[in-house]
Structure formats: structure tokens, C-alpha cells
């Protein structure tokens, strides 16, 4: 049953990513990226990461993608036009990405037996309790530093997007 769920949501992921690549209008790309991120949240649940599944939905498909759609609507972004640079990217981009994919797939599938299987149950579920114990005890300083980073990012965003008077 886990395999079936994996294939359903894995197909959603790949279909959404391909749709992002093929659509010419940015709002369509943004909506298909939301599909990818939400399907990834289901896959995180299959891997026993319950906190990250929730955080993926809240932070990625919630906050970040809302920001993206907001900016797309704010700038009134239309269909992208083809230019000379895009043809060079077509020639280099597709074979390069395909070569990368082939190499990685070959390595992962040849390591299939030593990598083993994903099994839920039997203490493999990482609860929010386990996660918070590491985060707030062992990694307290990095956690606090990231909050400072977010504060700086907010200030930077305000300064950069401000209209010059």
C-alpha cells in the first residue's frame, strides 16, 4: 500500500514539475509548484517526518508560494517571450539535465540493495518531541541565529522594495 501511495504522489510531483517547465505563464508555473510541494508533504509523512510534512504545507505551499503569486499579480507578469538567449539554453540545458538525471538514477539504482527499504512503525517515526529536543537543546545557537537571519531578511526586503522618493 505504501508503494501505491508513493507512486501516486510521486507522479503528482513529476507532473507538477514538468508543468512548471512547460507552461509559459508564470501564474500557471506557480500553481503547479504548489502541487509539487503539497505532494512532497505526503511523501515526508510516508518517511515518518510528521513535523516536516506540516511545516512543508505551512511554510512552502502556504507562505512562500503565496508570496510568489502575490508578486506575480503585483507585477502583472504576462507570458514570457522567447529571445536569443533561450535557444542557447535549450541546446545546453536539456542534454545537461538529462545527463545529470541519468547519472544520478544509475548510481541510486545500483545502490538499491544497500540503501534498504523505508519502513514505518517500530520506532522509526520522528515525532515533534524528538525534533524539538535536538533543536532547542543541542542546536539552540543555530536556531537563534536563523531568527536573526529572518529579521535581517525582513528589513532587507522592506528596504529593497521601498519606492525611492
Amino acid at each position, binding site marked *: 500500500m*505504501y*508503494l501505491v501511495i508513493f507512486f501516486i504522489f*510521486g507522479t503528482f510531483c*513529476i507532473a507538477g*514539475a*514538468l508543468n*512548471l*517547465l512547460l507552461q509559459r505563464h*508564470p501564474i500557471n*508555473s506557480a500553481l503547479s509548484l504548489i502541487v*509539487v*510541494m503539497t505532494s*512532497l508533504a505526503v*511523501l*515526508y509523512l510516508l*518517511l515518518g*517526518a510528521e*513535523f*516536516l510534512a506540516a*511545516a512543508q504545507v505551512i*511554510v*512552502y505551499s502556504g507562505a*512562500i508560494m503565496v*508570496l510568489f503569486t502575490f*508578486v506575480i499579480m503585483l*507585477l502583472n*507578469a504576462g507570458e*514570457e*517571450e522567447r*529571445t536569443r*538567449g*533561450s535557444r542557447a539554453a*535549450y541546446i545546453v*540545458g*536539456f542534454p*545537461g*539535465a538529462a545527463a*545529470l*538525471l541519468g547519472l*544520478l*538514477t544509475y548510481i*541510486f*539504482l545500483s545502490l*538499491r540493495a544497500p*540503501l*534498504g527499504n*523505508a519502513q514505518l512503525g517500530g520506532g*522509526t517515526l*520522528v515525532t515533534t518531541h524528538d525534533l524539538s529536543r*535536538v*533543536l532547542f537543546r543541542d542546536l539552540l545557537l*543555530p536556531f537563534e541565529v*536563523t531568527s536573526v*537571519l*529572518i529579521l535581517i531578511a*525582513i528589513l*532587507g*526586503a522592506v528596504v*529593497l*522594495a521601498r519606492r525611492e522618493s
Partner: protein
Amino acid sequence: MVVPIAYYLVLSAILFSIGVAAFLIKRNIITVFMAIELMLNAVNLTFVAFAHRWHQVSGQIFVFFVMVVAAAEAAVGLAIIIAVFRTRNTLNVDQVNLMKL
């Protein structure tokens, strides 16, 4: 039926390659930025899969930090896109080739 970890890694490789292709091919600066987010997500899936395989919490902590930094990066990046659009009146990356605003 259990899922081999290798399948998760292959799925993440597929997503990452699509992200690389979209990053190179797309001409709209917002879509290029979305391709970066797609690549970050693909790497996150790898982290979670390996964290599950070796029963380590630190892999998931890493994904948490990646999410936080991605949120900060999205805010700053989109602000830069707004600033660029205001001065150049275009979103095409081919026409944004000077660092000067």
C-alpha cells in the same frame, strides 16, 4: 509493500533535473526563482530519505533550516525582483544584464 529508499532518491533526482532544466530554459525571472525553490525541495526530499534510512534526527533538522533560509531568501529575492521591475519595466532575464539598477 515497502518502498525502497532508492526510489525516493530517484524521484528527488528527477525533480532536481527538472529544476535545473527550468532554471536554464525559462526566461521569466520569477519562474527562474521558482525553479530554484524546486531544486531546494528536491534536496530536502533526499535529506528526509537519508534521515529515515539511518534513523537520524539531524537530517530533518537540516531540512528545517533549509526551509527557514528558503523563506528568507524568497522574501529578499522577490523584493529584488520588484526593484528590478520598477527600474527596467521588464521581467526578462536577458534584459537584466547589468548590476546597476
